[in-house]
């Protein structure tokens, strides 16, 4: 559970930085540049879309209802290599 919390926290922090903090910084540093608006829009949209994509993939695997169907040879390899 703790690991879940840590992962969610880190990913949310990353995308919050990109989606909230960076646009504010852009407002400060690029106040007069003609491209300020488009950069802010791109940052916010990127953060929203990518965060949503990650969140869906994460939550979908939290409580799996079915398990993988493996051949025994593969099971043996998994036991040797990964576990």
């Amino acid at each position, binding site marked *: *559970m703790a*690991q*879940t919390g840590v*992962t969610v926290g880190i*990913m949310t922090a990353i995308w919050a930085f990109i989606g909230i903090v960076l646009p504010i910084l852009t407002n400060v540093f690029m106040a007069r540049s*003609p*491209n300020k*608006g*488009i950069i802010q*829009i*791109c940052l916010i*949209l*990127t953060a929203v*879309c*990518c965060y*949503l*994509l*990650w969140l*869906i*993939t*994460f*939550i*979908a*695997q*939290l*409580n*799996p*209802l*079915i*398990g*993988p*169907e*493996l*051949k*025994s*040879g*593969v*099971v*043996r390899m*998994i*036991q040797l290599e*990964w*576990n």
Partner: protein
Amino acid sequence: MSMDALLRSEEMTLCQMFLQSEAAYACVSELGEIGLVQFRDLNPDVNAFQRKFVNEIRRCEEMERKLRFLEKEINKDGIPMLNTGDNPEAPAPREMIDLEATFEKLENEMKEVNSNSEALKRNFLELTELKHILRKTQTFFEEAHQHQQALHDPSIAEERVGLLGEDPVTRSGQQNKLGFVAGVILRERIPSFEVMLWRVCRGNVFLRQAEIEAPLEDPITGDSVYKSVFIIFFQGEQLKSRIKKICEGYRATLYPCPETQAERREMAIGVMTRIEDLNTVLGQTQDHRHRVLVAAAKNIKVWSIKVRKIKAIYHTLNMFNLDVTQKCLIAECWCPVADLDRIQQALRSGTERSGSSVPSIINRMQTRMVPPTYNRCNKFTQGFQNIVDAYGVSCYREVNPAPFTCITFPFLFAVMFGDMGHGLIMFLFALFLVLKEKQLEAKKIQNEIFNTFFGGRYIILLMGAFSVYAGLMYNDIFSKSLNLFGCQWVLSPLSPEYNVITSKPEERIFVDPNGTFTGTSYPIGVDPIWSLAKNKIAFNNSLKMKMSIILGVSQMFFGIALSFLNHRHFQRPLNIIFDFIPMVVFLFCMFGYLVIMIFVKWLKYSSTSKPQPPSLLIGLINMFLFNYKDGEDNMIYSGQQGFQSFLVIVAVLCVPWMMLGKTIYQRYLKRYGQ
């Protein structure tokens, strides 16, 4: 650009310009260079041939014709045309005459050279054919002479003498009363030529032919053709005229061939000398032509640009109105309010350049016409704006969806593409195009497919970048998976199901998430164990379908929210009440609710849940059919039946609200006043 200018199309104003007649040309040239103005045609019902500057345009088109001719000649010779990439300004009207004179001179020179070299080549061809004839007929006559000698073998001399009544001594290699014609014909035509001769002359002529090994160059088309030499022996004048007619029909050229060998040898020498002379002259003509073309090739691109600019200026001037005093031209144009300063600056410099003392005036006009939509773009947003405009150009001052598509379009592409390896390839290809864009633009490549890719280089760059991210989420690199964070499924050999017997490696084992799943998701992306599973598609389908629903519904909500911005800007409260609100309610009641249910099902049910978790799809269908017969087991939360029925009824009510609400309200207003 301010946020408002990014969000909507620019504010435009209708302007009227008063231009002095002398200054008009220079002013239009300056305005053309900055490209911020769209002129309105003030003479729409005037025929194109009755406009004021139609003569100048005709002259420009004549110049373009000459330039095209020159370009064709340059391409024929394979000379490279210099393309420095600089943008020359339109020359002043008096310089146009100089340009015309230059083009005229060049064109005449080229035409002269071409016709000369054609005549020379024809001459050369005739001499070459004559040379071949003289060589080949030499052998024919020798054979005939031998044949004659054989005939005069003393053993049969008496019979021959008696038959023809001639003195054998007088014969000296010359055929008795036999005439001949010699000529050259295309090789393909020889068989039918022979047959025609046989038929027409009833077999009384004798044809010998020999092929010319080297191909000859046709002077008009320039192709190499294979020809053959022929000689026809006949007796009598009638046959001669028939043979001549047949040769004409088959386009065989006849040459006078002397009968004696000495004469032939003399002729051959003369022909050789003349061929050499001709070769020299031909070479010099070609050199001269090449030199003229090389000199023209240096400037031809610059000239084309200048001529096109002159033509464009005169087309624009044709749209202006001539004032009653005949002294100044009046123009109407649309321009962005933010750029009025730059336009005035351009007019000032144009008036200065033409040396006119009267300044040009521009003033704004009030109008009820709907201004054109102008979205200011840089090289990054231009591609996306083109895609959006392809579906339809937005109305004046409407919210411009293009800045948002900069991210959502590549993102949705990536959700469909989703492979790190292929995404990386796409990204690197687009990166190459972007980093080298200055050099590639300067090359002015004409290939349409390349230009499509080059124009969309920023789009492809973003699509590649997002595809890498989506591939990271799907855990897919060239269709293989990576195990970066450790698999979250532990298959302990201690439990009996996973204590596998190595002698049966193909046996299928269904892994139950109960004992094996560690409880935390794989941190970033899909767990790598799924790539080894036989039922990977069952998991992936569920994940991707639900992902598509969530992303699609969010996108639709976003679009409707933008429409709210439009309603607020154009101050249409009716639209908010009768369009925006029912759309939002409808979308939420049906698909927003489904999205919430998806998240609830993901978080609430695990493999340890006693009853089988209910299917969302069946649940949705039952929701609309009001079918709750399956009982309490299939409810996700208490009160679900009531709440869902409520949502369906509200959604159904939204339909007449959207369709009829505004109409009925407006009719009511009309009938009973304000």
